[in-house]
């Protein structure tokens, strides 16, 4: 069992110090629950909609890691794994990314940096105007198992989670920031869509999906929350309310993955079937 905590928090726009202080207070509150992995939403240190302000507020991943480890030393005993979405600056390239890092704080430090591949640039979104795309989806090893990170729209394309699963991921961490829209039912349509996606991806590949979704009001856009953890059968193990700050504390039992996959061997079938389809995949991609 690996205890996870999802922190569904509302950052204040542009207030990096204040938001990291908020994280520190939240971790102090979580200490009694002793999670081993804490997962934060997309763009947590700054808020999501920054437009050109990305350039003023983006953080280098090394500097972020140092600040997070300083927080851990103040409020935590022992190591802590932390997944956090943030705007990243690569100073050598002069490039900015919507990124998420997996840190083993108090241990090996940065284990993985995922740069968002699918940058929504339609409707209310304008990411590609300000950010560069990442070009990779890779699973990586943590001290608990094998994981992958996908950020928000990355996860809305089933091919990314398929890649992560084929690369061995047992858990996919999904920091997101999803403005509420479509009030046709008790919960906004985007929240319902996220829930369906998380359940179906988890069940298709027999892995855990941990969604950390931002809350807060960003100039009229209500970031919707509804963070959740889905089990390898596609069951919701914990779910946060919409629009409010909340913490989910869930034990992930990675030992359940093999038996669940044995009963529902979709991933094994994919591994057998995908090579048969590879030529067609290549054909349609090359025709793009």
């Amino acid at each position, binding site marked *: 069992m690996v205890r996870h905590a999802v922190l569904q928090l509302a950052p204040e726009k542009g207030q990096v110090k204040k938001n990291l202080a908020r994280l520190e207070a939240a971790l102090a509150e979580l200490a009694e629950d002793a999670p081993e992995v804490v997962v934060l939403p997309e763009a947590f240190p700054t808020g999501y909609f920054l437009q050109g*302000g990305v350039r003023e507020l983006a953080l280098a991943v090394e500097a972020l890691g140092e600040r997070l480890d300083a927080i851990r030393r103040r409020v935590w005993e022992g190591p802590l794994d932390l997944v956090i979405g943030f705007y990243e600056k690569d100073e050598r390239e002069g490039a900015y990314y919507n990124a998420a890092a997996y840190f083993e704080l108090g241990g090996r430090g940065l284990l993985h940096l995922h740069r968002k591949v699918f940058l929504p640039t339609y409707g209310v979104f304008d990411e590609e105007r300000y950010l560069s795309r990442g070009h990779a989806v890779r699973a990586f090893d943590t001290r608990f198992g094998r994981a992958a990170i996908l950020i928000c729209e990355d996860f809305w394309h089933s091919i990314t989670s398929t890649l992560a699963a084929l690369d061995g991921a047992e858990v996919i961490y999904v920091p997101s920031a999803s403005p509420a829209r479509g009030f046709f*039912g008790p919960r906004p349509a985007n929240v319902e869509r996220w829930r369906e996606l998380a359940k179906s991806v988890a069940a298709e590949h027999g892995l855990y999906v941990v969604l950390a979704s931002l809350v807060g*009001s960003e100039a009229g856009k209500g970031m919707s929350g509804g963070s959740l953890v889905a089990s390898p059968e596609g069951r919701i193990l914990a779910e946060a309310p919409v*629009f409010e700050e909340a913490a989910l504390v869930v034990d992930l039992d990675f030992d359940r993955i093999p038996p669940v996959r044995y009963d529902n061997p979709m991933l094994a079938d994919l591994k057998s079937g995908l090579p048969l389809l590879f030529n067609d995949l290549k054909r349609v991609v090359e025709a793009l």
Partner: protein
Amino acid sequence: MRKIYGVPGGEVLELDYPAVADYLTGFLRRELAWRGYEKGLVAVSGGVDSATTLALAVRALGPENVHALALPHAESDPRSLADARRVAEAFGVELEVVDITAMVEGYAALRPDITPHRKGNVKARARMIVLFDLSVAYHALPLGTGNKTERLFGYFTWHGDDAPPVNPLGDLYKTQVWGLAEELGVPEEVRKKPPTADLIPGQTDEDDLGIAYVRADVILEHYLKGYPDRYIEALGYRPEEIRRVKELVNRTHYKRHLPTVAVVSTTAIHEFYLRPLDFRIELE
């Protein structure tokens, strides 16, 4: 054999009004909080939009934190003030009445050529002046009441009734405001009366616009989403109605923007230099 017939897909204007009410209540709380306000200020006209904003403000902030203003002019329909009182009473808020006749007539006397249309705009801008002045006096944020239909049609006085910095209704069509108003308990007399700006004696919105809201809103939703005219006609709308809607939207885009600035640099505000309105960095 059991036959099951599917429901055709299509655009949906009907909303889950309890969910919308909860969402907009939270929206008002959050938008006031980061601006450093605990109180809101609503100009209550006696119509359904301002009644709905008032109801949301009371839900969000409590009646003790909401100032309701009635801003009548001597030419206003007396039923408007009576309905404003009815609304304030329904939501447990005291109604402060500030008569704008002297303000408006003071200016009008200087311009004997003033037309009813121009005077109507002066009334709307006089109300804006009172609202912003009392906002400072009460440290209460002015809350907007303009709905999406009138915003799209440009059916408002520029820098007048569109001026409040926070508007919970601006993305709801008029017909959706009616649905929300019912959910929030806005008195039936106010919900059912013909909408009017009451800037010119005897006017109604639907006469001015030349189309009924229940028809306009469906056309608007499809037009905004890019459906071609023939698709909208197939839903039962006449070509002249569709044309009227498109005409109103397309001659008023400027009213939904800040004034035009001549761009001469690569740091022109809102053109090159883009920051969201809630953007603030921490200074060392």
